[in-house]
Each structure stands twice: as structure tokens, then as C-alpha cells.
């Protein structure tokens, strides 16, 4: 990769981030827009969890990650502290992978 490509990518990724935060930020938006914007993490984060857990490249895959994230869901539901949820997710995945 050339330095030019790295700079273009850095600039592009920064512009994407700044677009939301600065160009559109700080304005009073209609309540309905605020409601939709407030829901963005509720839409994106579970989608990200699903993609990171259930897919590899462009395929649906069931593997050790499902066990780890399943254990994390149970842990989070039982109100286990956040750092422990991460450790449980990784440890169960690693254990299932080692056994398989």
C-alpha cells in the first residue's frame, strides 16, 4: 500500500466519522428525528453482534463463537459485571474450539 492510499483511507474514514458528529451535530432536530437517531445503537450493535458471531466472510456459520456469545448473553442477563462478560465470552469460545 502506498503512502497516498494510507492518507486517502485515513482521510476518508475521518470524514465519515466527522460527518455525523460535527456537520450535523449541535443542531436542534425535530423530536421524531431525535427518536430515530437515539435508536441507531439499538439497530447497529445487535446487527454487529450477529455478524461477528454468526457469519464468516459472506457465509452464515455456526461455530465456537456461538457458544461463547451465548454464554455472554446468559452472563449479561444475570447481571454479571461487564469485564467478566467479555472474559466468559472469550474463554467459552476458546474452550469449545480447543475441544472441537
Amino acid at each position, binding site marked *: 500500500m502506498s503512502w497516498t492510499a494510507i492518507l486517502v483511507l485515513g482521510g476518508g474514514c475521518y470524514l465519515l466519522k466527522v460527518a455525523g458528529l460535527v456537520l450535523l451535530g449541535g443542531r436542534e432536530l425535530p423530536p421524531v428525528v431525535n427518536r430515530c437517531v437515539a435508536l441507531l445503537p439499538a439497530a447497529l450493535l445487535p446487527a454487529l*453482534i450477529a455478524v461477528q458471531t454468526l457469519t464468516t466472510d459472506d457465509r452464515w456459520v455456526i461455530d465456537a463463537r456461538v457458544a461463547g456469545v451465548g454464554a455472554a448473553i446468559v452472563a449479561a442477563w444475570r447481571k454479571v459485571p461487564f469485564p467478566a462478560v467479555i472474559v466468559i465470552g472469550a474463554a467459552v469460545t476458546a474452550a469449545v474450539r480447543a475441544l472441537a
Partner: protein
Amino acid sequence: MVDPSDSAAPPGDDAPDPVTGSVVLGLAVGVFGVSFGVLAAAAGLSPAKACAMSLLVFTGASQFAAVGIVDAGGSTATALGSALLLGARNGAYGLRMSTILRGRLPTRLVASHLVIDESTAMATAQHDPTQQRRAFWWAGVSVFVFWNLGTLLGALGGDAIGDPERYGLDAAFPAGFVALVVPHLRSLEGRVTAAIGVAIALLLTPVAPAGLPVLAASVAVLVGLRRPAAGEASPSTDPVTDDDDPSRAAAP
């Protein structure tokens, strides 16, 4: 004290402590930083280039995609296109964070660089604006520091850690996000949005390029077009009623 099993518990009891949470997330990110550095070196990038990427691009998925495509012999244009598509969801995160980070312009220009999955998830899991800002900066700075340290180590040939998957670390992120998503699922509106978002992302995965499935899940926020019934909690307007709750200060 609030019984943890009480469904009427005040908001905030499920919000993770931003400091320890951010450090743990940062450590996991750091291991992936090492593997990014190793991959970059394998793809022919000098340590300076690998470190510049992590400093300037600071979007893990985009960096892995770009370097992976170059390593596989793909064109620079393809690499940039894929990387930007993967980075596009940060724009959606920025929109959400703009309602939380309302500081001066220079501050927001710096904050923009830190708008990623981890910082947005950590911030929006909190309930009052002060904690949201604190969580954003802790997670953003922690991930930035560990990601760049990891990249440096990996690029200099520090492949001692090995494959992060051996430690199940590829599942550490979805596991952490699970815990951070819980507060978003308190309202019916949040649960419906999440279910639609997951369905969109999974259905698009086999047919759309990487990055688009998660980005397209943002369409699920149109659930918010429905006017909430009186008294129904909405994530943006949760009143902060328990600021003086001593249990919050000691929350894990």
C-alpha cells in the same frame, strides 16, 4: 438497595463502569492490534506504514480489510472501497454521538477520530449525559492507545501472542457488545429495532459486500417514526431521576 431481579429497577444499574470496562476492552483490542501489525508486515507494509494506518485510519475492520485485500493481490481501489464501506457505520455512530458530545468545535473534531464501535457502545450504555461523555472518552482513548501499541509490537515482529482466535478473542467483542446492548433493550421500541437490525444484517450477509449488512441495519431506526405512547420510555428522553443514588457510584 435495588433488588437486581426487580424489573422496575431504575436505569443505570445495568450500565458498566466506564473505566474498568474501557481498559478490558482496550486489552482485547490491543491483541488484535498485534495481529494487524503482523498481517501488515506480511502484506509488505513497513512498520511506519502499519503504525500510520492505525493512527490515522483507526477503524479495525477497515484496516484488516484493506491490508487483507492488498495481501491477496487485490487493487488499491478495491481495498479502499471495502475499507470505506466498513468504516461508514462510524458515520451513523457519529450522528448518535452528536447528541451527547456537544462541546466546542475543536473538542468535537478530536472526538470524531474516536467514534468507533467500542466508544459508541460504551457511551450509549450509560444513562446520564456526564457518564455518557466520560465513557466515550475512556473507551475511545483506551482503544486508541492499545490498538496503536499492539500495531507497533506486531509490525516490529512481535508475533509472540499468536492467533487471537486461539484465545477466543474474536468472540470477546460480540460478548462485550452483548453486555453494552442490554440498556438499549429495555424499551419495546429498542427490542423491535434490534430484532429488525439483526434480521437485515443476517439476510444481507450472503449477498452484500462486507460492511453493508451492518450499515443497512440502521434502517431499523425507522421504528422511531411511531410516536411513543404517553409514559413509554424512549432511549433519548430517559429522565435522569437517580443521580443521587449511592449504589450507582459503586456500580461495577
